Structures are given as C-alpha cells and as structure tokens.
C-alpha cells in the first residue's frame, strides 16, 4: 500500500520550479474553463472539469504538469477562489497565478479554497494520480499515484492509462498499468479483449476483482459465448482459492499480532508475579510509563535531532526500559520491600501506587491521547496473498515481542543474575544461605519486570491510544495470561498468550467480539478448573 499524501508535495515543488519557466502559454480557454468550474460550489461541474482536463492532457492538448499542479492543489486546499478574482494557488513558498503558475501577489480580497466533499475528492485524487503518471513518468510520485489508481481501476481514465503506458519512462510500471487496463477492458465489447482481460484479472486475486468478475457474469447472463463463460468460471474459481488462502493467512497473522500484544503486556508480570509472587496492580501503569518515555524520546529527538526522528522507536528501547525499571526499583525499595510477607497489603499498596502514577502523569501531561509520529518504515503494509495485508507496525510488534522473549530467556537461563533469580524463586532461604542476597535479587528482578512492562509500552505506542489510563486496559488481561500459563514460567506465558490470541481471532468473526471475550474467559475458567496451577506449573516459593 502506498501513501499518497506526502510524496506529491515534494514533487510539486520540483515541478513548479521547472514548469513555470516555460509557462508562457498562460491563459488558454481550457485552463480558464477548468479553473472556473473547479471554483464552483456544486459537485457536477467540478467532476466534469477534471474528466475533461484529463482527456485533454492524455491527448497532448494540455501540459501534464499543469494538470497535476492544479488537481493536487485543489485536493489539498491549495486552490483559492474568490468572487470576480483570478484563481490563485497558495503553496508553501507563496502565491501563484493558477492559470500560468507564475508567482503572484497575495490577494487583496478574501479568497478561500472551495470545499472538497467526498465525491469531488475521489475525482481529484484519481485525477492527480493519473496526471502524475504523465507529468512525472517513472518517478516516486507516479508510483504512489499508481497505488491510488489500483484501488479503483474501473474508474480510471483509459486515455490517460494508454498515454502513460506509451511513455518509455513508465516502463517499470507496465505490468501494473496492464492490470489497470484489463479492469477497464472488462467492459469491452470485443470478446477477445474481454477474455484477455478476464485472464489478466485472475492473475491478481482480490475480493474486489472477484466482485468485478461476478458483476460481469451477472451482466452478460445467458448472452455470453461459451469461451467467455468458461474463462469467467475458471477465473472466479482461481480467485476463490487464493482468497480462501489469504483469509487463513490473515487470521493467523491477526492472531499472532494480538498474541504478541498480550504477551508483551504480561511478560513483565510473569517476572514480578510469576517469579516473585508479588500481586502488582500497578503493572499496567509501568506499561503506560514506558509509552510516555517513548513519547519523551520522540519529542526530545524532534527538538534536538529531527533527522533521527524516524528511528525514535529503536532509540527509545534502552531508555524506556531503564526509566520504567528505575520507577519499578523505586517502588520496590520504598513500598513493596516492606510488604513481602503480607500479600494483601501489597495488593492495596500497588493499587494505590497505580492511582498515584495515573494522577501524576495526568497532572504533568494532561489526559489527552499522545500523538506518535509513524516512522516511514512502520506506515502502511504490503498486500501478500489476495486481501491479506501485512501491516508493518503489527509486524514490528510481533518481531519485537519475539526478540524481547529471547532476551528475557537468555538473561534468566544463561547469566549469573538469572541463576540467582531462579535460585531465590525456588528456595529463598537456601539461596540466602549460600551467599545470594535475596534483597538485592528482589530489587533487580522487580526492576527487570517493570522494565519489560516499559518495553511493552514502547511496542504498543504505534498501535494503541497512549493516555494516562491506558494501563488499566491491560492489567486484567496480563493477570489472566500469567495465571493461565502457570506462574513462574515464561514459556507458559508465551503459549497462553498465543492460545488466547489465536482463539480470539478465530471466534471473533464467527460470533462477534463480545461473545469472543466471553468464550475466552469461559475457556480460561475451564482450564484453571482442570489445572489450578496453570498450563505449565513450576514449583516456586508459594
């Protein structure tokens, strides 16, 4: 998927610099009529103006860069109109005359962009995308325009597609342009063209193309010749197969991504509750602090090194971990340390801490959702099979969860510190006897547990709302996963998260999200009834 929002602006600046030079051909009747109509309030004339302009541009009667400049400005509130005034373009570097694109004086009277409603927007977006193929063939702007056209190929202007295919610079896109042309050829009256188009479309399976073929089938009815009918049947059958495969892949991917979120949210708790036995109700707030630390890193980078802004998520990894671990250690040393033998008091105390943290963050940052910039490498996704889209930010969450899991396992099983933690978990007094300081190990384990929650906050920030109360959404799920997986076992947590995530996404489309939640809870109760210690119980200090 391509995002068609930013790239053209850069391109527009370049284009304007080039084309104003040769724009002595200012006021043609076509330009005057187009601008007049684009300035109208009603929808019909504006859509008509775009269509006429595109056809003229494809025929070489209008400069493609002017077409693109005008259509792109009109859809992004750049085209300004006023009563009895010459339409102007307002660009980042100042005002320009719309007909000639030559620099102009700022208007004296009040001018404003005509309101773009959905219908006009669809027409302008399509027009800008099509004209980009002619104005800057082969460029990145043309490619992102192509992505836009592919969403509704049946509405493309076939003259422009043909003209764009003829340009040698568009050679890299010939295949994609061919697919778009095929969508248009479906309406062709020539049977050979139609059959070729059907075969071509079958190569690119998606629900939309299936609908196009079904519509054609319904339209032709019994009139179709046997060859066309067979071609249609085969094409639909082929697409159906791919769509089914895409649906399975999509379910697995959704399940994995939900599981990764559940797992990240519960990993810290698996250490704090699982290994140490502390019922920490402030765990959700550690997640929230991790997200706010990520936000702080983003803002700091924005101020100090804007060039690194795209990498803030990676830069924030150690910082979110350390800040949250620091808060966790402070909480452990000041409150929880004194309450290890009184679990009920820990429960109340951590609840108080949770309220305290929520309110402090509210006082400092306010209650509103924080805005996170989506780094270029996390925006959008890629269509893999039929309608199955791999969205990059979910993939990031999955990979990040996997990496953190491996890192946590390595620390617990391969380092001296991990050995101490396990020793204190299994037998606190004995570990103390052989020279491990249980107090220090407690402090460090609590720090690691809260640091992991901080990393969860980081991983969640591109996906979820970040506000002071975000943590309360995760605390119940986190306890559920840890208890289900069996306390004191990271593998158990992983498998419980995967199980709950997968079951959820399988049930959701069948019975709805509300029922899915109920069914998952019932399943968990059933499992706990059968295995009170969770799926994978380990002997601990309880």
């Amino acid at each position, binding site marked *: 998927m391509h995002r068609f929002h930013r790239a053209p602006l850069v391109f527009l600046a370049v284009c304007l610099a080039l084309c104003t030079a040769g724009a002595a051909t200012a006021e043609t009747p076509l330009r005057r009529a187009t601008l007049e109509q684009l300035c109208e309030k009603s929808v019909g004339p504006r859509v008509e103006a775009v269509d006429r302009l595109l056809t003229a541009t494809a025929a070489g009667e209008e400069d493609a860069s002017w077409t693109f400049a005008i259509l792109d400005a009109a859809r992004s509130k750049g085209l300004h109109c006023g009563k009895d005034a010459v339409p102007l373009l307002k660009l980042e570097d100042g005002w320009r005359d719309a007909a000639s694109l030559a620099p102009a004086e700022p208007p004296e009277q009040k001018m404003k962009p005509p309101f773009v409603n*959905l219908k006009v927007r669809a027409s302008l977006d399509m027009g800008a995308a099509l004209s980009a193929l002619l104005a800057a063939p082969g460029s990145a702007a043309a490619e992102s325009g192509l992505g836009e056209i592919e969403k509704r190929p049946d509405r493309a202007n076939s003259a422009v597609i043909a003209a764009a295919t003829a340009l040698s610079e568009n050679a890299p896109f010939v295949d994609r342009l061919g697919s778009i042309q095929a969508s248009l050829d479906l309406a062709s009256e020539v049977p050979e063209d139609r059959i070729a188009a059907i075969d071509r479309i079958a190569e690119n399976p998606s629900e939309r193309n299936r609908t196009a073929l079904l519509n054609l089938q319904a339209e032709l009815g019994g009139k179709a010749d046997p060859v066309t009918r067979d071609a249609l049947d085969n094409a639909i059958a082929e697409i159906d197969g791919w769509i089914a495969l895409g649906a399975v892949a999509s379910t697995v991917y959704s399940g994995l991504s939900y599981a990764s979120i559940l797992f990240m949210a519960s990993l810290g708790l698996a250490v704090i509750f699982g290994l140490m036995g502390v019922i920490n109700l402030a765990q959700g707030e550690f997640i929230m602090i991790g997200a706010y630390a990520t936000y702080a890193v983003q803002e700091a980078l924005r101020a100090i090194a804007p060039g690194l802004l795209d990498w803030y998520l990676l830069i924030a990894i150690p910082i979110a971990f350390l800040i949250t671990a620091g808060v966790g250690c402070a909480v452990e040393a000041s409150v929880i340390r004194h309450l290890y033998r009184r679990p009920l008091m820990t429960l109340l105390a951590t609840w108080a801490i949770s309220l305290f943290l929520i309110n402090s963050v509210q006082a400092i940052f*306010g209650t509103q959702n924080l805005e996170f910039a989506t780094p270029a490498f996390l925006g959008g996704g890629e269509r893999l099979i039929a309608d199955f889209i791999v969205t990059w930010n979910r993939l990031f969450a999955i990979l990040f969860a996997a990496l953190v899991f491996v890192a946590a396992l390595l620390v617990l099983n391969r380092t001296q510190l991990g050995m101490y933690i396990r020793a204190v978990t299994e037998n606190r007094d004995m570990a103390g006897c052989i020279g491990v300081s249980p107090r220090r190990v407690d402090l460090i384990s609590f720090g690691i547990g809260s640091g992991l929650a901080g990393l969860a906050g980081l991983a969640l920030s591109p996906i979820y709302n970040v506000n002071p109360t975000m943590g309360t959404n995760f605390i119940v799920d986190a306890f559920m996963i840890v208890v289900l997986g069996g306390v004191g076992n990271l593998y158990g947590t992983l498998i419980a998260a995967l199980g709950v995530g997968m079951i959820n996404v399988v049930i959701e489309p069948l019975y709805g999200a509300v029922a899915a939640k109920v069914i998952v809870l019932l399943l968990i109760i059933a499992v706990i009834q059968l295995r009170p210690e969770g799926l994978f119980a380990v002997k601990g200090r309880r």
Partner: protein
Amino acid sequence: MTLMKRRKFLKTSAAASVAALAAPALIARAQSGDTINLGCLFSSSGTMANIEGRMNAVVNMAAEELNAKGGVLGKTVEVMVTDPASDWPLYAQLGRQLLQQEKVAALFGCWTSVSRKSVLPVVEQNNGLLYYPLHFEGEENSKNVVYLNSPPSSSVLPALDYLMSEDGGEAKRFYMLGSDYVWPRTINKICKGYWTSKGFEESAWREEYVPFGFSNFQTLVNDIRQFASEPGGQPIIVLTVVGSSIPAFFKEIINQGIAATDIPILGLDVLEADLEGLDTAPMVGHLNCWAYLQNAEAPENDTFKEAWKSYVGGNSLPYSPETVIDPMVSAYDGVMLWAAAAEKAGTVEVDPMREAFPGLTFDGCPSGYDIAMTGENNYVSRGVFIGSVNDEQAFDILWQSDDQPTPVPFSPYA
C-alpha cells in the same frame, strides 16, 4: 479463623478505600444560604476519562460566567464535581448523594446512554433535574431530564440522507460497528428501520458490536474490507463505538490503507477531541454529525473558544485549550438554560422551573443557532451540522441546516 479475619479485613478495607475515593470528590460544600449548588456527573477516570473529564471544567466555567454577572437570583452558583470512574452504577450512587445530601439544584452529567439510564430512576424518585449534553438514541422523555442535544431524527438521519444522496456518494451498503450497549443498538435499529423504509434489503447491511474499551480492531477491519469489496454499491461505515475505541479503530483503518474515498466512516460519537493524537491526513473526508462543530462560523463561537482557552490556561487544567467539542457547548448551553429557567421561575425548585421551560430560549449558543425549548417535550431544538475530517485534527463543515428542526423524541423507525 485466619480466613474469617482476612475476609473481614478485605471487606472493611475495600469499603474504606471506596469511601476514601469518594470523599475528596465532594469537598466543595455549600457554605451558606447565599449559594446555589449544581452537581456534575462526569468521569475523570476509566475508559471515558479522556473525553468526559473536560466537561466538569466547562460547567465550572459557565458558573463563573454567571457569577461574574451577579449570579442567579442574586446568589452565587457553586459547582460540585464528582468522579463516577466510568462505572455506570456509580453515576446513580453519586447522583443520589448529590441530590439527597448536598441538595444540588440540578445535575449536569452523563455521556453514555447507559450512565443516563442508570441515573434516570434516581432523578425521577428524588424529583431532580438532569441536564444531559449528548446527542443520543431518543426514545425517552422524562420530565426530570433536559435533553440538550439532538435525537437521531435531527442528527443521524440527516447525515444518512446526505451520504445516500448523489453529492454524498450514493451509499448503498452499510456496515454498522458499535460498542455493545443501548445507544449503538437503538441507533442501529432506527437506521435499519430507516433503510427498510427507503427500500433497502436486509442484505445491504451488516452489524457488529464490541465490548467497552475494545481496541484490537484488526479482525473487524479485515471484515469491513471484505464487506466493502462485495457487490451491491458504495459501502459506508456507521460507527457507534465510544471512548478509547474510537482512535484505536481509526488507527487500524489508516494502517490497512482505507481512505474516506474508499469507505466513508460516519462516526456518530467522533469529536474533535478523539482526533487528538492521530495524524488526520490519511483520514481526511470521514464524517460526523453534531449540533455544534468547532469550526462553526459565529461570533459567539469565537467568544466561547477564547473563554475556554483562557479558562484552561488560567487554571492550568490538563485539557487541550484549542479543542472545543459539542458536548462542552451543550453543557454550557445547559447551564445558561438552567439559569434562564431559574430567573423566569424566580426559584430553583424543580416543579416551578419545569413550568418555566416552554418558550425558554438562549441566543448565545456558540453554534450560531438560537436554541429553544418547545414545551411539548424536554428537548432543545438545535441546528444540525455534518462535519468532514480535515488534516488539522478538526472537522470542516460539510453541510449545516437552515434552521433548527423540531426534535422528535420517539422515532417512527425504531
């Protein structure tokens, strides 16, 4: 024995903590006979916190404005703030406390219909007055509630008409996605009745609900994409999820690359405040419908926005000084309408005030429309706006009504 002790301890400590939570919420007590108290029922915690919290502030701001002009009936107006913590039964409990113990003259509160339904018996038993600032599903006309915002006939149906018109893209298929409670379910029922009356088949729509606070919309957005690609004409989404689910849903929509020109979303509970924290450039063109939009062109609106900005700044409140939303304006209108009723009745007793309602008007509403109560019911007639998301985290005005349609509480389509 230990078990007993523990249980008892758990009970007492739980009770103590609830009391401890509730107590500081009600500190602003009536000091003398020279004050009139108003009560607020808006959550500052839980899933509704981000959006309901600022409502307390706006009621306070309106009260200050009244006081600066000499108060109401020569008395100072004081506002008591509570935190029902997005916990619906707690709204009723705190409402009862405000009416019975604090003797407030009127309540301003509730966002979700489920919280209003829980307060309803309380105001009816105690003969109190609740000013409710949200547009909602209608189908209710209690003499103890003043419905400050529009029922579906003057908000949702005009918006659907627009989307089904030629200019709006001729919507033919409808995906209804809502939080699972009374407002979305009733709205969707009304919508379905409306579409049936327009000749649509049942196959033209699909209906899905999610729990409160739901945020994992991946599967549902997949489902929406599939629905949208099926034959039958232009699809739209009628979105009635509330609270933190709104931005979560939009994030996933953006993520999967769905633009308003592909599938327009009519977000019935979507406000300027829900767009905070979102990059709205890929969302441009999605719609909402309210009785006020931040970009309404009216001198009253400029005054109101300026007042809010300086109020937030002056009291260093944790809310965005630039964001003004319809329910804030409605709550402000409500305080002004309450004051007008009190002045007209010469008392803050509920029964005489109710008799003062017919013909009550307020011409300072920031929407630019003069608003009025008809006397036929407890609704307020307001103007209608349809908004379209722009790239500055706000809504451009796509359409606005010429006048203020008469509110119809009970829909013929339900």
